[in-house]
């Protein structure tokens, strides 16, 4: 068990008139190596929960255990936790600051106290892993495209070699191609390194194809916590939370209503294609 979240509550602006109960009684187990999608409408508490997992926010009540240790213990070093649980924020502009890409990626490992040489090795490795082109290593991070900036931001956290990687809406503001590139890169990262990955998004289509498990957040609570096909079967409830099932789910439902015998629970485009072909007797 890598991460256990136990009765976690968080209240923004406690003791003021505008207090918001952002997280309500969250209980969660995140085993090693899982790829989890966290879905929720804006303000559902998904980002808040993620910031608890690496100790940036401290819960109002409840605890989090990382590898069996209570992270709110007084002698627990949050800086260590942050090197194990890497969090990449939504906007790469918030973390890029160095004159060139390579030294920016070195920032994380240097903070871990590594020597210059080791830090550079890790930065090189991380940039390779995210598929960043080598000829751009020494350009200014501010001159890059949105997708490339995002890669550098992810590399900046990967260079710290975390065991758990949290990505907060890594595809926001990217075009469909850029989105697919980033998600595919994340998936291969997970496959190769066996890292635990938590991917925050508000789009089901983004995560449906890649993740093992989906957490649906709504008004500070976990509404669903299941494998994708089970979550998508609750189409009506999802829509009430201003979310939607993946597009293929809708198509398959309509087909079934029209009397065509398809497997309604297919979650990815490939699965949907094969069940539709089967229904029409084409192999």
């Amino acid at each position, binding site marked *: 068990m890598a991460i256990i979240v136990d009765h976690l509550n968080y209240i923004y602006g406690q003791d003021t008139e505008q207090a918001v109960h952002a997280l309500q009684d969250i209980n969660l187990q995140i085993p090693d190596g899982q790829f989890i999608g966290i879905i929720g409408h804006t303000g559902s508490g998904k980002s808040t929960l993620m910031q608890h997992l690496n100790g940036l926010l401290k819960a109002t009540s409840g605890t989090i255990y990382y590898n069996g240790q209570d992270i709110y213990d007084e002698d627990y070093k949050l800086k260590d936790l*942050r090197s194990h649980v*890497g969090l*990449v*924020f939504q*906007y790469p*502009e*918030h973390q*890029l600051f160095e004159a060139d890409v390579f030294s920016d990626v070195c920032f994380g490992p240097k903070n*871990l106290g590594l020597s210059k040489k080791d830090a550079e090795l890790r930065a090189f490795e991380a940039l390779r892993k995210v598929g960043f082109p080598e000829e751009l290593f020494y350009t200014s991070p501010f001159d890059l495209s949105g997708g490339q900036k995002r890669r550098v931001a992810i590399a900046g956290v990967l260079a710290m070699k975390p065991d758990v990687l949290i990505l907060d809406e890594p595809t926001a503001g990217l075009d469909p191609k850029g989105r697919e590139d980033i998600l595919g890169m994340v998936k291969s990262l997970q496959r190769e390194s066996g890292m635990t990955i938590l991917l925050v998004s508000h789009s089901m289509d983004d995560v449906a194809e890649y993740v093992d498990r989906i957490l649906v957040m709504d008004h500070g609570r976990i509404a669903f916590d299941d494998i994708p096909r089970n979550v998508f079967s609750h189409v009506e409830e999802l829509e009430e939370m201003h979310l939607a099932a993946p597009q293929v789910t809708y198509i398959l439902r309509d087909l079934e209503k029209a009397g065509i015998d398809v497997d309604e629970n297919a979650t990815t485009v490939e699965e949907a294609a094969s069940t539709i072909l089967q229904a029409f007797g084409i192999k």
Partner: protein
Amino acid sequence: MIRDITIGQYYQTDSVLHRLDPRVKLLGTLLYLVSLFCFHNPAGYAVALLFLILCIRLSHVPFGYMIKGMKGIMMILMITILFNLFLTSGTVLVSFWKITITVEGLKLAITMALRLCMLIIGASLMTLTTTPNHLTDGLEKGLRFLKVIKMPVHEIAMMMAIALRFIPILLEETDKIMKAQLARGADFESGGLVRRAKAMVPLLVPLFVSAFRRANDLAMAMEARCYRGGDGRTKMKPLIYAGRDYAAYLILLAYLVISIFLGRWSVMTELLTSL
């Protein structure tokens, strides 16, 4: 963390004070602050305090909320009190070890503390009841006469409005950037002065980049809407004095007359007898 500062912030509610023309509040605050320095005896302070309490009641802003904003100036207040208490010479009240407290010192410390508190609460009452936009509107219209001596009043007011508008945005952004760098193992708290100053670089660079980007976007948006400075520009909600504003001016005048008359009683009587 940085959001706890309430001084200078607007408190959203509905009250007579909120609806008052900002020019009245600006002039009123200025006169009130000046009046605090005119008093020679407790009667003046009593009137000023009464007037302030009345205004606070009228404003519907919870008193606790105001006091919370005062925490930041506690340090200054303490230093003022201590210095006046221990370093004023006069008739000795108590004396122990190397410390002597004089009657004059005690009086001075109390008046200074009172004056400082009323000064700050009085000033923050204005910002609490006036939106930044209203405030700059009031400044622009109230200081229009300075145009005669070629003061760019509109431009200054516009700059103020923009600056005020961006304070909460930049605060929020600072918070986000700080978190992003903390997640990469940055350390803003330990180490000596030089190390801490160096640790600010990963915070300041993205902040400046984003501030410039925002400034650029704003300039573009203003230009796209044909902003060309203040000449001939009309307002959607022009400031026009209403009955309550004239009433407020009268109350202000009454306050000034009474408080200064009472607060400078000795001076007044002297003046009268000399006549």
